């Protein structure tokens, strides 16, 4: 497996400009002769599909939901970063770049991050032109707020629904192209195989989730924008349908998987309420701007929060990090919360949770101001938890939320399989070992609107495509593999449900490969996962047949992939013998419990090559160099 990142030469500020000039172009009248498959219709996929169609390419887009408007980008609440410096508070492209590299704990590729910061400007312009109703000031200009670990106000937002509004802008652009006949949309289709012909990605095999039909689709290039894999933990803030299947199947066909152990645990989710819990709900981290996080000083203190006097409360984030306080980065805030719970100082009926208290903010600013800022979030909390957060502090706990790892891509966002491009959360490119708040939407849209349409053009312009159709042996073989697998799921007829086994897998990963990991635990997980996988293939029960809507069958397919992927994640976590960002190895911490990186041995992206189910994967490295942001220890004290 060859890893050539294809980073353009020259100063970091000029790389993207120079690269755009160096890329080959497809003549406008020839673009319609090239076809592209886009899997996923979230911010990255939807934006890429719409933009490539606008440029003139023949695009097919696939999503498993009933409409492209429902992709999980829709659930992002807080906002989107852009270095517009509209607040005049000293922000710049360079500062956003610097913050993102540092926030990622020096495990991202500088050139990609700089480009991301650069493109952030155009994203806001594009979204506003589409009619995204961002929050505004009375003068009619755009409002900004400071968000999760940033010391400038660069976050644009639309109430608590920024992801929704950006996705609807993108969806509307996509629908315009569908109406114009330039995009063929395949709703309720799931990609189950990548088809590689003569070493290049040339198509996919899908299952129509309504009719069960297995279909082949040919194109000149394939783009995967299929999101992250946090549902490997079973309980996460991801939508129920989010899965690793598309990128895992591509990995099995030769695409290198980078840094699977980099997962982000979000500090402000609602705590799990019981065995029935099917997913975790995120509360926007903007709440940490005014809420204070605390637990009782005393272990096992079961008094109601209003009866615990201030000097018996431990505002631990303010204590540990006097300058950042409650706004400490996500990974740090999450780990500290787990520490409190592990010490027996957790709150709520289960003891799993910490308080996020608005008492002081309400006293200082008045209830009206808090209501204006967070009204919808408070309502949401009250509805789910059944408690009034204006009177009783919220209870929060960390939850798997985002995955920084993904398929390895070069500067053109192309994987190790020529013709297979990967965008958004599905690739590994920009966030290193930890993603800063309000940066996911930015990355999805930068990839989709501004990078993929150009780099794919370059790939297509270089040509050399043989004419093939779905009768090609590779398509036949892939279809057969899908049919075979479907038949297998339905024939096992064991005793355990898909959900039951998924829950067990999630518990293993949360315990041994969650917020804090150690070698012994990871080895335990590496023994437990193959055993559970074996049990799945012998004892799962998938009712019904493959000829119609069968949600258990869909879930079984996704779980089968998680059961293979989870093992890779633990391999990577065990191999990365350092702490970095969201990957915290207990063996590597400073005296006061901070992550301790090992730049000597681990300033690289680990890229894994698939060698067979149950076989040890082979590691390749992309060395990371830091020419602009000097390697330094993160400090949020």
């Amino acid at each position, binding site marked *: 497996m060859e890893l050539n990142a294809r980073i353009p030469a020259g100063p970091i500020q000029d790389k993207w400009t120079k690269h755009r000039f160096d890329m080959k172009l497809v003549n406008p009248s020839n673009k319609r002769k090239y076809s592209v498959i886009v899997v996923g219709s979230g911010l990255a996929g939807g934006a890429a599909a719409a933009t490539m169609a606008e440029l003139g390419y023949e695009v097919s887009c696939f999503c498993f939901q*009933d409409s492209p*408007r429902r992709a999980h980008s829709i659930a992002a609440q807080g906002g989107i970063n852009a270095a517009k410096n509209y607040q005049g508070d000293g922000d710049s492209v360079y500062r956003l770049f610097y913050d993102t590299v540092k926030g990622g704990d020096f495990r991202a590729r500088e050139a990609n991050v700089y480009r991301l910061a650069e493109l952030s400007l155009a994203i806001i312009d594009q979204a506003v032109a589409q009619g995204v109703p961002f929050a505004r000031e009375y003068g009619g200009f755009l409002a900004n707020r400071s968000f999760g670990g940033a010391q400038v106000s660069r976050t644009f937002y639309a109430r608590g*629904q920024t992801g929704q509004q950006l996705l609807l802008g993108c969806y509307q652009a996509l629908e315009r192209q569908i109406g114009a006949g330039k995009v063929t949309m395949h709703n309720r289709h799931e990609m189950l195989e990548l088809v590689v012909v003569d070493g290049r990605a040339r198509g996919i095999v899908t299952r129509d989730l309504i009719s069960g039909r297995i279909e082949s689709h040919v194109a000149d290039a394939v783009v995967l924008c299929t999101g992250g894999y946090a549902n490997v933990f079973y309980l996460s803030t991801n939508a129920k349908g989010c899965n690793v299947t598309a990128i895992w199947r591509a990995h099995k066909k030769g695409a290198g998987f980078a840094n699977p152990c980099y997962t982000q645990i979000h500090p402000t989710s609602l705590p799990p309420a019981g065995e029935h819990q099917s997913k975790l709900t995120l509360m926007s981290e903007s709440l940490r701007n005014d809420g204070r996080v605390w637990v009782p000083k005393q272990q096992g203190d079961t008094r109601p929060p209003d009866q615990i006097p201030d000097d018996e409360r431990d505002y631990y984030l303010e204590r540990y990090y006097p300058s950042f306080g409650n706004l400490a980065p996500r990974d740090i805030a999450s780990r500290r919360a787990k520490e409190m719970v592990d010490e027996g100082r957790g709150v709520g009926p289960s003891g799993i949770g910490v308080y996020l208290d608005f008492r002081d903010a309400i006293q200082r600013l008045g209830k009206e101001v808090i209501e204006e800022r967070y009204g919808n979030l408070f309502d949401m909390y009250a509805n789910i938890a059944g408690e009034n957060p204006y009177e009783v502090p919220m209870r929060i706990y960390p939850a798997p939320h985002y995955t920084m790892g993904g398929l390895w891509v070069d500067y053109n966002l192309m994987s190790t399989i020529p013709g297979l491009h990967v965008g958004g959360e599905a690739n590994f490119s920009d966030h290193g070992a930890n993603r800063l708040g309000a940066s996911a939407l930015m990355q999805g849209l930068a990839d989709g609107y501004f990078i993929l349409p150009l780099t794919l053009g370059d790939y297509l312009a270089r040509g050399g495509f043989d004419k093939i159709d779905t009768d090609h042996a590779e398509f036949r073989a892939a279809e057969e593999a899908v049919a075979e697998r479907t038949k297998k799921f339905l024939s096992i007829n064991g005793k355990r449900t898909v959900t039951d086994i998924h829950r067990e897998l999630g518990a293993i990963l949360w315990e041994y490969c969650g917020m804090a990991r150690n070698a012994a635990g990871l080895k335990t997980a590496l023994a437990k996962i193959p055993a559970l996988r074996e049990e799945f293939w012998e004892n799962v029960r998938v009712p019904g047949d493959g000829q119609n809507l069968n949600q258990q069958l869909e879930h079984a397919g996704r779980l089968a992939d998680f059961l293979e992927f989870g093992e890779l994640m633990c391999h990577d976590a065990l191999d990365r013998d350092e702490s970095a960002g969201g990957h915290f190895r207990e063996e590597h911490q400073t005296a006061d419990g901070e992550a301790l990186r090992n730049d000597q041995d681990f300033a690289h992206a680990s890229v894994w090559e698939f060698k067979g189910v149950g076989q040890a994967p082979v590691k390749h490295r992309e060395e990371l160099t830091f020419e602009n942001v000097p390697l330094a220890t993160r400090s949020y004290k």
Partner: protein
Amino acid sequence: MNLTLHVWRQAGPDAEGRFETYPAQSISEHSSFLEMLDVVNERIIADGGEPIAFDHDCREGICGMCGFLVNGVPHGPLPGATVCQVHMRHYQDGDELWIEPWRATAFPVIRDLAVNRSAFDRIIEAGGYISAATGSAPDAHAVPVPKENAEYAMSAAECIGCGACVAACPNASAMLFTAAKVGHLGLLPQGQPERYTRVVDMVATMDGEHFGHCTNHGACQVACPKEISVDYIARLNKDLRTAKIRKSPNIR
């Protein structure tokens, strides 16, 4: 808590449907409505049956994928919430619940509680956008937008496309859905160039998709999980009238 469910079961679009009765036993009051159905489904599977199919995804009220009638009410009894946001503490032990899919010609049943809402996509496709190709945008501050306008546009833009408005309407009209998009884009300066063709084209598509007409019942507003106001329907009608009396919709 223990409940009795009467659930609409229908094997496919052309199959005949009927209510089947299931006990929902030892349900936690902290579970959501969909988690209650998960529990029931796990038991159906254990007993060798086929689980109840229902659409869902984000389970936090924003994706718009879930939705069905509970005792005749879209998304159940809680105002301003999708059914995934309704928790079982809103019900009493011993309650009997009738659960069925959206009922509308334009939303054919796929299976059990899942319906086909692609007609909504086609309404958007007809004009629910601003034609701004990637790369064509001026600086975001080039055109200030009065805060009140931006807020009022946002209140319409919150629509999640779930279909509750259609299900609540005695005519199965998609007027609130369409009006929300017409209102959102028509309230912003960026939306002005296509404002009148947009409303004409979207309404024509809505009619062609076999949604009923709006007779100002207002049930849609009550059912809407985002509490979108019928005032936007008035705005749509005003724009539609203006467009229709013009020689060409966008020419003043």
